[in-house]
């Protein structure tokens, strides 16, 4: 475990995905495919799984609301315990946390965690109906505020405060596109140039179409097991879950967060030392007993190219305002000091909400096992993920080997 003292007891026995894309089929089919891949990878029979945790999708009818039992039924009712988690983009990590807790508590031995989604074309938008007390509805009605506009606010701020340029943002896309070339599960496997990005339409200034991730169909699954089960499976030197952070903000949340129309105020309570996004990674590091200097590889939620730069700083991989320097020096490319998004990231996958945080864990598992053919970060033993959700949801997972 390379000197890392993190909480043990939960082993990543198997991982699997359904390739990302626009396939036009049911999320259930994607989820079952990913689940069977993960079970095969772990060498575990479905009948031996004693817990299924589903990442909920809110755009696929009732079956999506109860994703855990939907997957359990589709795989064939086996009497397992079941749970379904939802936490916007952090859904997958919450599902992993629920499974991890039951294993650590001695309540489960072999858990299957699955997230799958189908996604509509164009902007993500609220479900139909008028809801004047729903911030996610109001931001569209009163402001016309789409998701990319939030990303653009953060991007513009990087430009004005730290001197980031549109070329920097494009360089993130170029890097991730190159990383994803060899990834069979990625949707886009094509080199992109800085010129391509800059020539694409501006969606919300300063972000171009190619700065913003698409929405995809896709699925990811992991099999988590107890130490005792890992021993039975003969897993020597396995990948372990050292931390799962699912902290909420501390009042006042002073950075504007999707889908809200305003931040909390500092009228009664002063802002804390850390931003919410900084606290997500900090909690993960604390739980794992490591610091950012121990991290070999990171998978972060690049909803936009500029957000990858934010996350590098939020996770402490570099000081505030220094992400562009690292990027320009090639340090975040595979082969650099701290490769970011070796999978290709959302840039190559597109977003599939309940699957994404699980997919990040799949990639880290392959990286830590040395199985990330064509995109391997050599010698990686410690990986961290980060993602962000609406309404005070973010997540960070630390895997170690």
């Amino acid at each position: 475990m390379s000197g890392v003292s993190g909480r043990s007891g939960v082993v990543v026995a198997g991982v699997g995905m359904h390739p990302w894309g626009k396939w036009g089929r049911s999320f259930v089919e994607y989820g079952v495919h990913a689940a069977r891949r993960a079970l095969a990878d772990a060498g575990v029979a479905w009948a031996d799984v004693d817990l299924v945790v589903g990442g909920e999708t809110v755009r696929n009818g009732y079956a999506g609301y109860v994703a855990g039992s939907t997957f359990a039924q589709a795989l064939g009712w086996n009497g397992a315990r079941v749970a379904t988690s939802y936490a916007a983009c952090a859904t997958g990590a919450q599902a992993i946390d629920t499974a991890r807790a039951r294993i650590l508590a001695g309540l489960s031995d072999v858990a299957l965690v699955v997230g799958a989604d189908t996604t509509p074309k164009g902007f993500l938008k609220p479900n139909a109906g008028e809801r004047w007390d729903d911030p996610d509805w109001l931001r569209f009605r009163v402001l016309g505020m789409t998701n990319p506009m939030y990303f653009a606010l953060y991007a513009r701020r990087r430009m004005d405060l730290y001197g980031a340029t549109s070329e920097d943002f494009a360089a993130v896309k170029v890097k991730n596109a190159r990383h994803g070339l060899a990834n069979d599960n990625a949707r886009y496997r094509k080199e992109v140039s800085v010129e391509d990005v800059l020539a694409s339409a501006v969606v919300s200034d300063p972000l171009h179409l190619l700065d913003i991730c698409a929405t995809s169909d896709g699925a990811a699954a992991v099999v988590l097991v107890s130490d005792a089960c890992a021993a039975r499976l003969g897993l020597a030197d396995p990948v372990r879950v050292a931390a799962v952070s699912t902290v909420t903000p501390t009042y006042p949340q002073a950075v504007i967060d999707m889908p809200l129309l305003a931040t909390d105020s500092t009228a009664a309570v002063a802002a804390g030392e850390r931003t919410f996004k900084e606290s997500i990674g900090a909690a993960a590091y604390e739980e794992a007993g490591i610091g950012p200097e121990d991290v070999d590889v990171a998978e972060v939620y690049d909803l936009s190219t500029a957000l990858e730069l934010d996350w590098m700083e939020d996770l402490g991989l570099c000081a505030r305002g220094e992400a562009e320097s690292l990027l320009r020096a090639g340090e975040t490319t595979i082969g650099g000091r701290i490769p970011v998004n070796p999978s290709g990231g959302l840039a190559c996958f597109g977003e599939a909400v309940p699957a994404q945080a699980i997919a990040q864990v799949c990639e880290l598992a392959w990286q830590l096992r040395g199985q990330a053919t064509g995109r391997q970060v050599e010698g990686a033993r410690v990986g961290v993920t980060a993602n962000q959700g609406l309404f005070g949801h973010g997540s960070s997972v630390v895997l170690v080997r």
Partner: protein
Amino acid sequence: MTSSPPATPVVEGWFTDGAEPALIAARCTACGDLVFPPTAAAACRNPRCAGEEHEAVALSRRGRVWSCTDAQYQPPAPYVAPQTEGEPWRPFALAAVELPEGLVVLGQVADGFGVGDLRVDSEVELVVEVLHVDESGPRTTYRWKPVAS
């Protein structure tokens, strides 16, 4: 002859109109914390305050840009386009504005101004303009207008 219906706010109670319009926040009567939009929250958002009553207070009319952007594609419903049918939709700008009271409020940018008129830390002032027209007539909203410097 039918008279056109009067303009009404797109949401009641979020801002005042007139010569010096202002946003309305809910202030906790116990700890003084401010919340915008002024939703009728049962509980104070300050985790260490047990307050359950709020009063309406006006926020400062001027603030500084925390960041800004624009919409170059028409947002999906429940967004309602302002133009009448047949007319092309026009992009609009949006700013996150930090007020002296210590909160950042998102708002569209006043008609006729774009991201080129703004940068982080530039000053803006609240105005009220028509957002769109619906079955009840013109609906107004608050917007941020660059202050000539």
